[in-house]
């Protein structure tokens, strides 16, 4: 990533780009989750006015998962395979507050119910390998929302899911984010999905923000990279003889980032 600036309010911000464009790194950097030899440099990295760039590691651990949560792409790899769903949800809760055992259990069950899991009592006692991908991802969402975070970073939360389940998971996430007035950073490679789901879109290429626009304005996007991405998707209703192939311009890498601050 190089020279990226953006702000997030109580809104849904979409970050789109190809693999290797730095979109996931952006989400991770916001939580200082970059491993060496990676380094983070910034003029300012703040959350509610609190300096994150220089906060001690102990404070960061409180923030991660507590005030800012992250949902990863594949529930298969982000749930602990040897703990039941309930155990790990309660663990997440205990890490960020004091709850009695019963209270924690009740909150976990209520949260499972909120993500439209029909029989929370049963799912609470299941192991991750006993649930489907869509259900696993909903459990992840439930677990991440349990400590009541203010910001949710979702890194390709639906890419591992089937189309029909995808919409369902997105709807649930959308509803919860709206109801709780959270800020959402939605990272995805799917431009159309992001356009439909987010308020504001940031388009990244080679570690830079090449364009930013309101979701409704995506059709009028000007940057050749954005236009190229839009046109390369095969469209069921409006078929084309040949799909447009992206012609990469080396100048895109040279151009400095566009600011996505409001």
């Amino acid at each position: 990533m190089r020279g990226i600036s953006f702000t997030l309010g109580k809104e849904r911000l979409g970050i789109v780009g190809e693999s290797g464009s730095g979109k996931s790194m952006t989400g991770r950097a916001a939580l200082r989750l970059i491993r060496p030899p990676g380094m983070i440099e910034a003029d300012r990295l703040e959350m509610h006015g609190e300096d994150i760039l220089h906060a001690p590691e102990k404070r960061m651990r409180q923030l991660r998962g507590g005030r800012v949560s992250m949902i990863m792409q594949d529930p298969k790899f982000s749930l602990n395979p040897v703990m039941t769903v309930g155990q790990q949800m309660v663990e997440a809760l205990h890490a960020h507050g004091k709850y009695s055992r019963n209270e924690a259990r009740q909150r976990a069950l209520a949260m499972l119910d909120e993500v439209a899991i029909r029989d929370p009592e049963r799912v609470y006692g299941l192991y991750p390998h006993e649930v489907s991908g869509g259900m696993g991802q909903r459990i992840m969402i439930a677990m991440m929302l349990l400590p009541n975070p203010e910001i949710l970073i979702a890194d390709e939360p639906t890419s591992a899911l089937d189309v029909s389940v995808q919409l369902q998971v997105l709807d649930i996430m959308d509803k919860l984010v709206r109801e709780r007035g959270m800020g959402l950073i939605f990272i995805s490679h799917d431009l159309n999905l992001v356009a439909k789901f987010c308020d504001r879109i940031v388009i990244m290429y080679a570690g830079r923000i090449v364009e930013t626009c309101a979701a409704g304005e995506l059709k009028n996007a000007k940057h050749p990279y954005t236009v190229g991405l839009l046109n390369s998707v095969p469209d069921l209703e409006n078929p084309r003889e040949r799909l447009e192939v992206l012609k990469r311009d080396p100048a895109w890498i040279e151009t400095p980032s566009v600011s996505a601050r409001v």
Partner: protein
Amino acid sequence: MTAIAIEDLNVWFGSPGHRSYAVKDVSFKVEDGESFGLVGESGSGKSTILRAMAGLVPTWSGRMIVAGETLGKTRSKSFYRKVQMVFQDPYASLHPRHTVDQVLSEAMRLHGVENVDQRIVNLLNDVGLGTGFRFRYPHQMSGGQRQRVAIARALAPEPSILLLDEPTSALDVSVQAEILNLLVDLRAEHRLTYLMVSHDLGVVGHLCGRIAVMQEGRFVETLGVNEMRKLQAKADYTKHLLESSINSVR
């Protein structure tokens, strides 16, 4: 001529008494030069059909006639030459310690293709890589380039039927467009028959003329691409699938 004829195909896994059927009573025909698509959710059995045809799943019953050969427990050598498969993940389907040259020449040597040296050059040009890639290892290439190599490997024995198992789902949309264009060109050039599996209706709609929708191991519906584009599906499940993929795009 019919390239692929499948009748009452059942495929199962597990031991006797605990059989779970992945494919149930599936029948379909694909004509020579046609491009046929299988869509459905994960676990609907679409890939299993391809794997059973390729001989990767031994537990099946029914009748399969592919490339003029009635398939039994064993297949002739010429079958493997005529039918080739491209897998989903280009990162997993190439040998990490073999160069492109080794991968392609091994495939050709196995099938007794002559003039290997010249053919490798032609193949690499066919898939749009050029000879500069001939002595590279998989880790020196991007996902799209690897998938091109995997396609070149499948084309090496000069097959007439390609089995495509989600060939673009591990790739970015921009790279996906390149690979789809390549597949369209290759089909026209080499008069290939495609049997393609995908969960992406847009991709299947772009490449295939006829599409079968699968759910829980059965064919729900078979429809032409034009009917699909006009959203004229009869079965409820197909409608639901079409709706959700149209919705996710808009």
